[in-house]
């Protein structure tokens, strides 16, 4: 990426003026704001967004959740406004979800609920695994070898604009069985996200490292293992997070349109059977799983990249 301009007015001015200002002496709002800006400039843009999103605001999230449920309750149960009375109320959803003998067959005590969850998780993990196993090496090759890039990247660009869900009919006809077509649709978007971010990651490595490696007489394999792989890692993990998000997204679409099991199917089936609370149970479960899986990737990423104390400069 571009190096920071040496303009003190620019975002992320040098560290030196941070210290010579000794911002703690003037503990007023303005200096704090400046210090804040320096710290934020030190983190990447995604890092900042991420911090904003998860950070330590668990309390606020809980508050938001409570507020959300209250608004939902008021709209559906208390006021029963026109159109809102079609929606299941939080009370109905909660009683259904925790009932030992659920009216519509889905609750935390029924095995079928966990079956749907497991089917969906298995599909996402399989698709994600294939996408990463194929996408990271391809991205590294694309970033490493100019000729390979020139030859192959146009094909990637040719196929990438087609949204994964537009592949559903095609996949159903081509691939044997529903399972493989749902997995295929799920892995497509994740694959492209991984390839592109890995490629960007390789490109983001400063040329100095390559020159240094060259001077030190690294063989090509050493350059790959010691320069390219660790250097591209931060972007790869950004890519993996995006890939996980789009996997869940496409999975739901694939299961709704073509699936016969899984959470996407559960939601659509509940709609067909007019088992309204099940729709919301499915949605909440999907939201939770999506959130947990991206949190998991963040954890792994932070652990693997412990050397990056504050993150790379954007």
């Amino acid at each position: 990426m571009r190096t920071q301009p040496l303009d003190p007015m620019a975002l992320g001015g040098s560290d030196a003026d941070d210290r010579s200002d000794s911002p703690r002496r003037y503990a007023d709002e303005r200096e704090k704001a400046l210090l804040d800006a320096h710290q934020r400039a030190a983190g990447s843009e995604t890092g900042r967004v991420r911090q904003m999103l998860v950070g330590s605001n668990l309390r606020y999230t809980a508050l938001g959740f409570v507020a959300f449920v209250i608004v939902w309750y008021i709209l559906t149960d208390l006021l029963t406004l026109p159109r809102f009375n079609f929606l299941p109320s939080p009370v109905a959803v909660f009683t259904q979800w925790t009932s030992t003998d659920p009216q519509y067959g889905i609750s935390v005590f029924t095995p079928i609920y966990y079956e749907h969850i497991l089917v969906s998780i298995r599909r996402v993990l399989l698709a994600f695994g294939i996408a990463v196993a194929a996408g990271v090496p391809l991205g590294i090759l694309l970033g490493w070898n100019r000729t390979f890039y020139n030859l192959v990247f146009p094909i990637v660009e040719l196929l990438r604009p087609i949204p994964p869900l537009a592949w559903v009919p095609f996949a159903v006809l081509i691939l044997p069985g529903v399972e493989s077509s749902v997995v295929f649709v799920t892995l497509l978007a994740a694959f492209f996200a991984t390839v592109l971010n890995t490629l960007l990651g390789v490109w983001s490595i400063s040329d100095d490292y390559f020159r240094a490696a060259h001077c030190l007489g690294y063989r090509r394999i050493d350059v790959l293992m010691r320069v390219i792989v660790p250097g591209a890692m931060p972007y790869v993990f950004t890519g993996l997070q995006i890939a996980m998000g789009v996997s869940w997204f496409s999975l739901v679409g694939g299961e709704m349109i073509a699936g016969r099991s899984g959470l996407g199917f559960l939601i659509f089936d509940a709609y067909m059977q007019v088992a309204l609370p099940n729709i919301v149970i499915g949605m909440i479960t999907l939201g939770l799983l999506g959130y947990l899986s991206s949190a998991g990737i963040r954890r792994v990423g932070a652990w693997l990249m412990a050397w990056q104390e504050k993150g790379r400069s954007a």
Partner: protein
Amino acid sequence: MTPLWDTKWFLWERWSRRLRSAVLWQGLAGIITFFFVWQVARWLGWMVIIPSPIELAGGIPEEISRTGYWQNWVDSSRRVFAGFAVAAVAGIVIGVVMGMSKGLRATIFPLFEVMRPIPPLAWLPLAILFWPSSELTMIFLTFIGAFFPILLNVLAGIDKVDPRYRLAALSLGSSHGAMFRRVLIPGALPSLFTGLAIAIGITWEVVIAAEMASGTNGLGYMTWDSYMTHSMIGIVLGMLSIGIAGMASSWIMRVVGQVATPWQR
């Protein structure tokens, strides 16, 4: 100033440089190999179901000339742009309000945070129940898909404005209005357009799936209908059309973004 022949010469120079570069030829070679392998695989009888590139080239014009093909474009684009426009307005307004006031942000943001991890398509059944027409259902889904990326990027853009610019504006005695117009808006615009470009891609994705699952017209439905009638050429045409539509929309967003932020070039 510049005589005509000069511009011509310049264009020629640029084109000839492009023609002489390896990038173009290698790219072409890659794509041609791709289609060639596909064609050969078909000749060898490996792929029974997928039509070959030659068959596609022959069959697609006929499919396009069918009545209603262009109407599908109109229907899908209308849904995409309606949902996108509402999401853009809502995302920008809410994002700016949240960006300007820390208190409001702490109260509103967690509310969205709860809804964000739910994939947009999971809203489909509830949306069908809630909205009186299928048109509104699909517009709502595209709205849900586009809203969060726009909101997040507006917020990130406002956060990214260097506080020194704000302080400089304050010490030069700027009013609230001037601060907003001269500092915050130009500072947040690049990030906003990134968000818009991401969002328009997602809206196409969502509208296609919604049309497949519950629509009666549009490009997604056309693709699904071709599947029902086992018309492989129709399916591929649908995929191509959707890809082109999505690409064209993001291209429009990029151009608008470049025009709106001339200092970024």
